[in-house]
């Protein structure tokens, strides 16, 4: 989905990349290239998030429960000179009990400017502004009960971390840098993580894998990117696997259909889209034609 694809730094937003190359093997410069990727000015997508708790069954590992599946339709548009402000809308298509719930979100690059969020619930019958949370404290809770936390969804700021190249290795048949990312003391106070190890594709500046460490220094999550494709000139990992090594639960975020740089009119990313079915569906029909 837009929110995820754009803002999940490790899981999603790093999945796209610029065609530019980096000459110097400087860890910070590599990560700058990763973060400043070209991810399109707009994005329309349909995303599935599947989550299950897994267990050992003999020598095999299987889902220990019926997976929970959310399907969302997302539209995102970037704003500002650096295209670092985002407006996005997400509508739940499935499960049926949550069908039609809509979220509208405005994210701003400017420090101190809080995210605006609204939600529409048909049972409530109105658009409700919701609290985006205090950015000075670690966020708890997960996105739709998946293994993707709200912190995972936040865009990472280059200056909030220090970087070091640990190794060069081949991963998924791609030459990669293994980069250690440590939060600055100021950032560490607000984060649930104490360290990240990222496998960055040397050619495409795409994070293919990331290991996340909790505040105690214990490995807590493994994120893996799969099915990398170039769509509308932009690299995208169609699947993001988030394995919580502590809770032994895994989420797979799958971009089923996506299109980039399709014109999205300004008024689509407003509260009107949450409540005006004729307006929303009329516009979405046109946008869906572009999906790949």
């Amino acid at each position, binding site marked *: 989905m837009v929110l995820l694809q754009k803002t999940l730094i490790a899981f999603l937003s790093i999945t796209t990349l610029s065609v530019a190359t980096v000459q110097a093997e400087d860890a910070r410069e590599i990560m700058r290239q990763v973060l400043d990727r070209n991810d399109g000015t707009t994005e329309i997508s349909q995303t599935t998030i599947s989550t299950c708790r897994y267990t050992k069954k003999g020598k095999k590992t299987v889902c220990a429960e019926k997976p929970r599946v959310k399907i969302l339709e997302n539209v995102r548009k970037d704003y500002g000179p650096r295209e670092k402000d985002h407006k996005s809308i997400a509508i739940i298509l499935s499960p049926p009990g949550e069908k039609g719930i809509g979220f509208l979100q405005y994210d701003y690059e400017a420090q101190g400017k809080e995210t605006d969020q609204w939600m529409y619930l048909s049972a409530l019958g109105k658009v409700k502004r919701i609290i985006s949370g*205090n950015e000075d404290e670690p966020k708890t809770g997960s996105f*739709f009960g998946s293994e993707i936390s709200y912190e995972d969804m936040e865009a990472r700021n280059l200056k909030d971390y220090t970087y070091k190249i640990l190794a060069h290795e081949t991963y998924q048949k791609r030459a990669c840098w293994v980069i250690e990312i440590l939060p600055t003391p100021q950032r560490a106070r607000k984060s649930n993580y104490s360290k990240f*190890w990222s496998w960055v594709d040397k050619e495409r500046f795409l994070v293919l*894998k990331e290991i996340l460490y909790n505040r105690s220094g214990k490995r807590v999550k493994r994120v893996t990117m799969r099915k990398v494709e170039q769509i509308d000139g932009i690299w995208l990992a169609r699947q993001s696997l988030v394995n919580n090594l502590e809770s032994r639960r895994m989420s797979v975020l*799958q971009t089923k259909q996506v299109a980039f740089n399709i014109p999205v009119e300004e*008024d689509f990313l407003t*509260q009107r889209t949450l409540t*005006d079915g004729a307006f929303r*569906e*009329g516009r979405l029909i046109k946008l869906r034609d572009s999906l790949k």
Partner: protein
Amino acid sequence: MSHNLIFSAIARLLVLIVVCISFSTSVIAQNSQTLSSLDEEEEIDEIEEASGLLDNEDDEELEIQLTEKGKQSHQQDWLSFLIAAGRLSYRHEWAYHTAEPERIVINRSSLRLQWEKLLLPGHFLLFDWKMAYNAAYDRLEYPREIEQRYRFQEQTREFYLQSSFENISYKLGKQIIVWGEADGAEVTDVISPRDLSEFLFIPLEDARIGQVMLTTEYYQGSEQWMLILNPDPKVNRFARPGHEYALPSMTDQPGIMVKEENKPVGSLVNMEIGIRWKKTIEQSDLSLMAADLIADTPVYRFEHINDQGLPVLQPEYFRFQMLGAAANLTEGNFLWKGELAGKFRRVFQRSDFLKKNALIERNVIDTALGLEYDANGAYLIIIEISNQHLLNWTRKINSFRRDEGNLYASISKNFLHETLKPQYTLLHQIQDQETVHQFETVYEINDQWSSTFKGTYFDSHQKNSSLGFFQNRHRISIDIEAHF
């Protein structure tokens, strides 16, 4: 009567079909997930990871299971496909009164069909219908009229056509409009009447009554204008005398004859008009509202003394006007919200109502101020205080105090990966010093099925207080709900 029996038979049959379908799809899905397998994950250390020895085979295999599940969810949802853009919901509610007389008061199955579709570019149809059968009436002794009215019920919640063009949108048909920011008070939320036939116990989605209206909305940037024309106003729905939750009313008073309600009929004379302007300003949303409406609750007007010497009262609904404002503001973990409304020419009954001209007009100021605190996803607290103030109040006004204040508070926290959602809610009446405590927990069994447990306790000791009627109506309830 035979009509009722046919409906109830259809309702039971539909419930049975839905339950069977649900269980069969669940079993198919459950079996298929055990077919896939994968290698056990190797324990690795950081050095191995850095050396590229991290084995992700487990992730890949689980990925197959989870993405296959995603496909299955699409493919097996054939029932949804059959009803096109629809959603079918089944719910069974079971409620038990824990105070004397202890008994099951609700044993109700309901089916709800919601269907929405873009018919032509810019034209959208929505249909929301529900039918319910309460088997509690099979066992309990109620007046025949009550049994007939409440055993089987069906209603169309909303049914409208919406057409959108550029900056403007029209909605014509039965619809529900909710204004304002408050969760626990009615300040500016005056358009759609409420179903109060089960007091606090009514499910949220059934709490409002749809009305046939024409709504026009105009959008310009972050501004939104709404104009409502309602030629067929409805009023609040109360339980009829003899029902479990029938509130005391004039009809209970001995020596008084109350005529049938003079409910407003659809006509241009009874047209309700509402207008709202709404704008988003930085971290805040601001609304200004004005409306000319018919009150949702009746006032009893003395008519005459009948042949038997009894005074005859006529329940009537009088017109009033409202000017209101609502706003919210987010700041860090907090969401502040407030509402203010002036309601003009509200009609009240005098204490000496058995006289001609025993009605009295007063203006009312309604206010609500609240805040929500979200502990960065850990838990959510809502506190809201509201007050209704009658200007130029006099003791001669029957059943209304100068001030009527309420405190509403709730705390909720999610567990088990947001599948277990307990919530405690408190509603405190300030003047009477009486409180309703409610604990509710929802458990999402899977993507289709969920269950809810609810316990409600009325801390009320005064017979004639606003909660007095409910002091022996503590209850526990369990709901099970499925969506297809």
